[in-house]
């Protein structure tokens, strides 16, 4: 998520953010990686598909592994909304 986030940055995560409503495009979310056990990732929601799956992308397009590679993720993958600290 460089340059929005850098290695070692600490962020707060709102775990209740999506209890009532789905994530929206543009939001930065914490998700479970689709196939790496125990790995959580921080990505930006590009769009929400009709079936509720989220298509997520990293900010650094060249270096990011994201939905462009592993596809849209099921809504259960989303853990919460990442709160980016103000600059």
């Amino acid at each position, binding site marked *: *998520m*460089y*340059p929005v*986030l*850098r*290695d070692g*940055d600490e962020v707060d*995560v*709102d*775990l*209740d953010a999506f209890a009532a409503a789905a994530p929206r495009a543009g939001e930065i979310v*914490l998700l479970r*990686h689709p196939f790496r056990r*125990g*790995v*959580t*990732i*921080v990505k930006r929601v590009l769009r929400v598909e009709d079936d509720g799956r989220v298509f997520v992308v*990293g900010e*650094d397009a060249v*270096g*990011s*592994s994201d939905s462009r590679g592993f596809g849209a993720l099921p809504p259960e993958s989303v853990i919460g909304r990442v709160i980016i600290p103000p600059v």
Partner: protein
Amino acid sequence: MNERILPVAEAHCDGPCGVYDPASARIAAEAAVSMTKKINALVVPAASDKAAYVAYLNTLSRYVAIKEEQAHLCKSELLVLWTDYFKPPHLEAYPDLHDTFWKAAKLCSAVKVEVSETHCAELMAAVKRIHEIFWATKQRDVAWYTAS
């Protein structure tokens, strides 16, 4: 809201193994340097001494072949570090990073193209600089050493 310690989340994804060490580039560079010195140390026998001349040509050919292969391996190892290990935040700390790697790769070519102990020394200096930058980004003090 429940508070809990959140495990570390990955904001980017590394390559499959995540194991990087500029030592592999250094070893290949040392091999190319060694072959350059061995080529220069050969004494050309008289062409009239056929057996000796054939053996000399065979030895010279093999030394050149290995110099080429090892200089290319050094270039490949450097390119893996440059493309896969180093990331945009590193560029902030080392703005000359791309230039350093570009010149190091060109020195690998120079070592192939010529039989030059000068280019060999320049290549070793470039690999040493990359070693220093690499371990600094990992905040580890790893001493530079050469095998030969």
